[in-house]
Structures are given as C-alpha cells and as structure tokens.
C-alpha cells in the first residue's frame, strides 16, 4: 500500500451527541484530508462543529461513524491505551488556556510527553526548539510566573518535543492580545516551514487564519467551503456569509 499523502484523513465522519429527539449532530459525514507539511485553519461560527472536528481528528474523541486516519493508522481500530500512546508520540497539542501543569517547571512541562513515554529527551533537539520558541532563560520558572504568550510558547515547545506527525491547536491565540497572538502564529508558521511540521488550528479569527496555507469552513456539521492561501479579507467575507446564513 502506498504511503498516504495525507497526514490526517477523515472519511464520512459523523459525530452525534445524545439519543432520540434530543440528539445533536455535531459532524455530518465530514470528509477532509490534511496534507503533510501544511498549516491548515478550521473555521466556522459557534456550534459549527469545528471543535468536534478537532477532537475526532486528534483521537481525543471517537466518531459515531466514519473513519479517521493518522498517516496509515486507522484510529477507531485502536483501544484507549494505544490511542493514548499514539497521542503521546505522534500528535502534539496546543490549547487556548490551561495548557500547562502548574506544579511543573517550564522545562519539565516541555519534556513531559517524553517522560510519560519513558524516553530521554534529545538534548540537541530540545535546545533547538527552546531556542526556536525563545524560552532559553526561563526553563526553571513555573507557569504561574509567565505571561499568557510565554505560556503558549511553552505549550508549542511541548507539542514539538516528540517530533509529532501533526500538531493540533485549539484557538491558541484566543486569550492573547493581537501582538502576542501574531508572535504565536509566526511561531506555528515556522514550525511548518522550518521544522516541516503539519499544523491544524481551530480558530474564529480571520487574521489568525490568514497565516495558514488553507482554510476549511465548517457550518452545521458539514464542510461548506475551502480556500488555499487566502487573505484575511476574503476569509472574513466567507465567515460573514456563514453567520448570515445561520
């Protein structure tokens, strides 16, 4: 079998919450492929299913039906334990906030996925990513001593440390001021261009989405549009159209 050109590939993914008349269809037969080495934004109005898309794509949640592949690996075939190990080694995460364990230092937070897997951090690689996210002097600090932007840098470093196949970011700039947000987005861009990573980012901010290679638009659980190399203005137009449609 040929190696897939997609880092992540969703085929007919449906996710339903609840049963009977109260059931909510969060994803409705969504199919999408994320190519390796790209920076993708997933956008949509509130309740469009973009968070569910991320959860299913990242193996945090199981779809009701359909198939999710990470590289060659079919995720629904995996038991919880294997799925957890897969998240630890092949996927990186950056969340909007509460990304770090308050009881661990910056360095301990960064290497935590490796330690959970019982591996020793590769010093050269560690120094490389610490330099890349510009945290050199703060490795022994605790998260509470850092600003919001610095905390997100630590989270990105943690996501990079295992050299994952995909990094999923859920509103990584949602809690930051525009200038800090821009720095974080540049950092994610660098991860794709310099470190050849694949990044999938959920956002509602057209400015943030403008840093990406392609944008997927979700509405009411379906992929409604896609753009390659868009500008912030066009993205904002599409988003405005979607909101009106709601």
């Amino acid at each position, binding site marked *: 079998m040929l190696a897939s050109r997609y880092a992540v590939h969703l085929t007919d993914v449906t996710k339903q919450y609840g049963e009977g008349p109260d059931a909510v269809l969060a994803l409705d037969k969504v199919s999408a492929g994320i190519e390796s080495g790209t920076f993708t934004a997933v956008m949509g109005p509130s309740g469009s299913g973009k968070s569910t898309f991320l*959860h299913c794509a990242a193996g945090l*949640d199981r779809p009701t039906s359909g198939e999710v592949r990470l590289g060659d690996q079919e995720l629904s075939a995996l038991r919880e334990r294997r799925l*957890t190990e897969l998240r630890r080694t092949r996927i990186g*995460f950056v969340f*909007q906030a509460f990304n770090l364990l308050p*009881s661990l230092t910056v360095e301990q937070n960064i290497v935590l996925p490796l330690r*959970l897997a019982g591996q020793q951090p590769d010093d050269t690689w560690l120094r490389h990513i610490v330099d890349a996210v510009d945290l050199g002097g703060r490795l022994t600090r605790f998260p509470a001593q850092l600003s919001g932007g610095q905390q997100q840098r630590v989270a990105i470093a943690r996501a990079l440390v295992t050299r994952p196949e995909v990094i999923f970011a859920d509103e990584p700039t949602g809690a930051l001021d525009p200038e800090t947000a821009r720095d974080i987005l540049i950092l994610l861009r660098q991860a794709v261009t310099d470190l050849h990573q694949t990044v999938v980012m959920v956002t509602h901010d057209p400015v943030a989405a403008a840093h990406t290679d392609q944008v997927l638009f979700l509405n009411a659980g379906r992929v409604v549009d896609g753009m390659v190399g868009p500008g912030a203005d066009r993205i904002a137009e599409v988003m405005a159209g979607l909101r009106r449609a709601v």
Partner: protein
Amino acid sequence: MLTLALQTLKARKGGFVGTFVALLLGAAVLGACGVLLESGIRAGSSAERYAAADAIVTGRQEVELTLKDLDGSTLHESQPLPERVPLKASLAERLDRVDGVRTVIEDDAVTVRLADAHDRPVSGRHGSALQAHNWAGLRLGDFRLTQGHAPRTADDVVLDSDLATRAGVRPGDQVRLMTTSVPRTYTVAGLVALKDGRAPRQSVLFLSDAALRQLGPAVQAFGVLADPGTSPGRLAHAIGSALDDDHLSVHTGDGRGRAEFLDVVVSGSNLVVLAVAIGGNVLLIAVFVLYATTALSVRHRRREIALLRAIGTTPGQIRRMLASEAAVTALVAGALGSPLGLLLVHWLRDRFAGHGIVPPDFPLALSPLPFLAAILVTVLTALAAVLISALRATRIRPTEALGEAAVEPPGLGRGRRITGWVLVALAAGSFSTGLAQHADFFTLVSLANSLVLLLVIATAVLGPLLSRAAVRLLAPLLDRTGVTGYLAAANTRANVGRLAGAITPLVLAVSFASTVVFTQTTALRESSDQVRAGLVADHVLTAPGGVSPDLAAKVRDLKQVESATGLVKSKVVGAGQLLGAQEAVSLGAQGVDPGALGTTLDLHARDGDLSRLSPRTLAISTTAASWLGLGVGDTARLHLGDGTPFQGEVIAVYTRGFGFADITLDHDLLLAHTTQKTDASVLVRSADHADGLTRALSGLAAHYPGTVLRDGLAVDDQLAEQRANAWVNYLVVGLIIAYTAITVVNTLAMATAARRREFALLRLSGTARRQVVGMMRKESAVVVLAGVGLGTVLAAFPLTLVAIGLGGTPWPAVPGLGYLAIAGATAVLAVAGTMVPTRLLLRIRPVEAIGARE
C-alpha cells in the same frame, strides 16, 4: 510517575492537607492501638514472690468452651477467668515424684483487709487487695527479711516495708487483719523487702504457716525448685507430662510474673479486645474520610488530569500518579503520626487506669513494631481510598481540558436515585424490625448503629434532593435579610450540588455522635433508674475493700431487721448465641441470700418466680436470656469465676439486669468461688418496728474497720463498669468527630477557595468586602441549619429504638449540654471552614483574583 507525584505534592500542598491530617490522625490512633494490643498480649510484670522458683504450677486461669459455629462445626474458645483457680494440696506429692524436682513449696494465700492499731483501713499499693501468704512460701521469691524476725507465733505478722510505711507501723507495733469476720490483732514481727530494694508491685503480708491455716487459705500455686543441672524448660516439660491435666498450667521465666499478677493478665486480655475495637472502628472511618478527601482533591484537579490525558498520559499512568501521591503522603503522615501515637497511647493508658480498665501501674510494651505496622496500614488505607477516586479520575475525558469551565455533570442519575431510595427502604425496614422485636439491648444497639449508617449513606446518595428541600425551606427566610441574604439565597439555589457536598459530612458527624453518645446516656439513665427502683432495702453497709461475710448474719440477728443479705459480685462464663453462631461470653453475676432476695432487691421478674432461688438454680436478666438463648425451666450450663462448672435450672428472667447483674445466684455458692471471699455490701430491710436500727447497725459496723452505713447503694459504684464502657464509647465518638471535622473543614475550605473568582467579580461590581462576608455567613448558616437539623432528625430513629429496647419509653436521655456540645462543635467547624478561607480570599486584590487561572 513518582517524580510527577512528588512535584504535584510540593506544589499543591493545600489540596492534600485534608488527606494528610486524616492519615496523620489514623497513623497515630492505629499506632496507639497497636501498642495497646501488644501490651495486652504481652501483659505481665516481672515476678516478685515467684522470682526464685524454677517453675510455678497454678490452676489454668481460663476456661475452654466447646462452641458450635455457624456451619455446625465445633470450635474451642478460651475465656479468661477473673477469679483465682484454687489447687488441691494433694498435688504436692505428685509433683515431688517428677524427675528433676528438688523441692516443692506450697503458696497458700488468703485475702485480708489490714487496719492499723486505730482501726484505720490501709489498702495495698495501687489500691489493690492485700493477700497474706504462708511464711514458707517466702523462699519462692525475691523477698528478704530486712528487720525483725520471721513470724513464730500465731500472732506474728511480717509486712513488706512499703506497706509498713504506709500503715505507719514498725516491728513491735500492732496491726489488725480481717478476713471473714471481725479483725484479729497481730504483732509486726519483722519487715521484708525485695532484694533490689524497689517497692513490690503488690503489697504482701506473711503469717506463720499455722496462723495462716486458721484463716482458711486456698492453695494458690506450687513453686518448684529444680535439681542442679535441670533447666526450667525441661522441668516444666517433665511436670506438664507427669500431671497431664489441662486444668493446670506450668509457668517458667516471664510466665511466673503472669502467674503471680492475675490483674495484669485479665486487664491485658480486656485491652486486646478494646484495642481491636477502637482500631477497627478508626480504620473503617479512616477509609470513608480518606475516600472523601481524595475524591475531593481529584474533583478539583479535573482539568489538570484531563490535560494529562490529552497529551498522552495513559489511565494506568494517572492511577500510578495518584497512588504514588497517596503513598508518599501516607508515608510522611505515618512517620509524623508515630510520635503523636506515642503521646496518645500514654494518655490512653492513664485514662484506662483511671477507669479501672487496667491496673494503675500497667506497663506499656513499647516496641517499633506497632508503629511500623501502623505506617504500613496507613499506606494501604490511603491506597485503598485512592483506588476508587482513581477509577473515577481515569474516566475523566481528555476533551474536558479544552473546555472553558470544568463543569461537573449536574443532577441526580437514575441509578443514584434508585440506590438512594433502596437505602431509605432498608433503613425503614430495619427500624420497624427493631420496633417489632423484643430484642435485647445489645442487639438493638448494633441495629441502631447500622440504621444510622444506612441513613447517613442514603443522605450522601440523595444529597442533592435533600439540599434542594432544605433550600426551599430556608431560602425564603434568607431573602428577607437584605441584599446579602438575597445573594446567599441565590447562590444556594443555584448550587444545590455544592450545598449537598457541604451538608453530608455535618449530617454524618451529628447523627453518628448523637447516636453513640445518647445511647450511652440513655443506658446509664436506665441503669441508675433500675438501681433506685430495684433496691428495696432501706439500709446498706459497705466498705471499699469489701465487707466480711459474717456481718450479714449478725445484721440478720438484730430484732429490728426483717431481712438482710450480703451482695457478692463476680463473673460467670457461658456460651452465648450471636447471629446463629456460638461465642464465649462473660456476664456479671451477683450472689444474694435467697431468703432475703424479695425483701431487699426487686429484680422485677418478667417470667418465673425469683423466690425459688437456691444453690441449684439461678435467675437471669432479659439480656442474658437473649444472649444465652435460655428461658424459665431451661438448664443453664455456666462456669463460675474460678472455672468451676455450674449447672442449674433457670427459675426466673428479670428485667433489672442493667442496674444489677445479668446472673443472680445463691450468695454462699458464688462467694465460695471468688478470690476475695468478701461481700461488696450488705443490704438491710428493716422490720416494722425498727427503733434504734441505725444506731445498732452503726454499732455493728464499728467492729469492722472501714465499713460504713448508707441508706442506699451508691449508683456510681454499682455502675462503675458501665461507666468505663461508656467512656470507651465516648472515646470512639471523639475520634469519629475528629475525623469528620477533617472532612467538614476540608470540604468547605476547598469549596470556598474555588470561589475566588466569584468573590473578585462581586467586589469589582461594587459589593463591599463586608457584604461578601455577610453573604458567606448566611450561606454557612444554611449549611449548618440543614446539616445539624438533618443529622438530629436521623439520630432520632436509632435512639428511639434504643430507648424502647431499654425502658419501654420512646424517649432517649439527651442531656442538653451534650447535644449542645455535639451540634455546637459541628457548627463551629463548619463556620470556620467557610469563613476563614473567605477572609483570606478577600485579602487578595480583586483585579488579581479575577485574572488568576484556576
């Protein structure tokens, strides 16, 4: 995982304080119980009077009963005997013939009461009873003559020098000794002391062999000196196989001390029972409390655990992390708890001695073993408690890390609702069973205890429903108390789940403590009522060291007296029926003259006829009837206090067993089988024309030093054992309260601390600090009112059962001050647990607090 656990412990000390304190207390109490257990098992003092003998032969101080187990198989159970088992003098000849025996020395003894020349009674060291021994027995021990000479005539006595000092006598002075009748005067011939000069554990007197024989002594032991070259072990073995009698015991080494000091051995076995009961109770509560504290800390770390899961921590790793945290906390708590346990065990020993449960000089066996065991048990308890929380923690879904707020699923699941109502139905069932059955007191007490447990668990399960009801009741009142009341009402309405979490530990504390404490006060009230109602004698003669048995006869001869009896007390052992299995039980027994029973004591026969009491029959209390499974006409098979088997027909079942004893026997029969051979008191019923009776009785009493005339039985003396028992129960309650206090404070403090952002928001939107405090004060008032009120209501059910079982009235004895102490202590804890964190949180600047993460 261990490093991660250690880091978390270091950073999140606050969340572990509750668990830590609970573990610390647990380790201390378990360590203390372990020491008591070891002391009880190894109870013994080094021999004094028997120290020079190679082996000591005594009667076996326990009786072995053959019992039927639940499955019909038989098993043997030994029960210690409270009275000294006497030996036959003829045994000496058989011992003499055993290989390796050089000399056999008889130890004869009789209990005496000593008075100085002015008839002032002198008690033995530590208040113990005094025994006079034969002079020939001196050679068995370490006593040496230090002054004067050996007793030569029938009037000579030798005292140990410590006793002589306390009596204020020297060789040549006169003392008076009393056994079965009026005292006889003796001359102090000499003094003895232990070789090493320390005061003997038990005061001792020696009489010449001829003088002692006149007092009717019993053979207490045979001391054996070995041939040169025969080791004590071989000697004991030779004696054992030559005698081949399991009613006898051969003691060597430290065992000689146990043969000499019966009180230490008897209280040692009581201590074992107590230590196991207290330790067991504490262990049970500890698991409950630890489960609560660990569950709470897991709930507060939901988001952190979800994050760990999201970035690839397996459920197994989460479990290992939580287990490591628990184990490390338990190890530290256990290590720090050990010195606390050491202090506690000394305090407990003193209290036990104060209540007569152990002798005042009872030695503690201190070794590291109980503390190491306590640390181990503490760690295991912590791990057991964390196991359940960990299962819940691993069910936390990784996606929860991504959400904005860490919300818990609201409402009451169907399963939980069903469980709750099943528990309520079970509780109702056991309550009506208790009401319908004519069960004995102890069965009812255990039923009451399980009832309150069922009710508390039901409360915990149905907590949100109950707190919603409480809110519906209390919130309208709050609404009327201004804006802070309005806020408090809104908060409690909106957070019924949080309120339920706060109320449950209060309900537990109040209902549990009330049930245990007021069961005891109700029992004590009933007992003292019975003593007052059952004593129909109008005069009582009594003495601290016991009354000479011939005094009753002399009183009976007075013309102003209708009847009189000596009242002698001891214990009997029998096979009890407990839940279908047999178990050895020890019951209090009293001996009364059958001719005077009806006129001096009214035991209130439920069935049968008390006047048929004779040396071949017995009467039993309702409790004993239910325990032994006997009724009127049945044959009771018991062992008297010195192990003698007794078989007799039950002629009556009486209800006043709490105030008096559970078994009533013929006076002379029971007296003959006690060590002391004295009456506790003499009960006197005056004749119709009783002029000058008081003077006549006082006149008689004057001939018996120490004997005093009273117009009733001292309730305190009569119920000393029950009081000691009640005290142990209070101790257990105290520990339960201490544990619940941890949960109360922990739950409330953590719930309050989690509201820092809410407080900040209130203050930023214009609420004064004072108003936030006012709001929280009113919220905690709701918690206290609901918790204490519900706890009181729940306790009413088991207490009603107990009260009905005891006296037929549904009203338990609830001393106002006692209730106030329980309710007040709980309320203070609850208020402090809320208000202290509130005030601390209000010191943080609201702008900082609102921006704070978590």
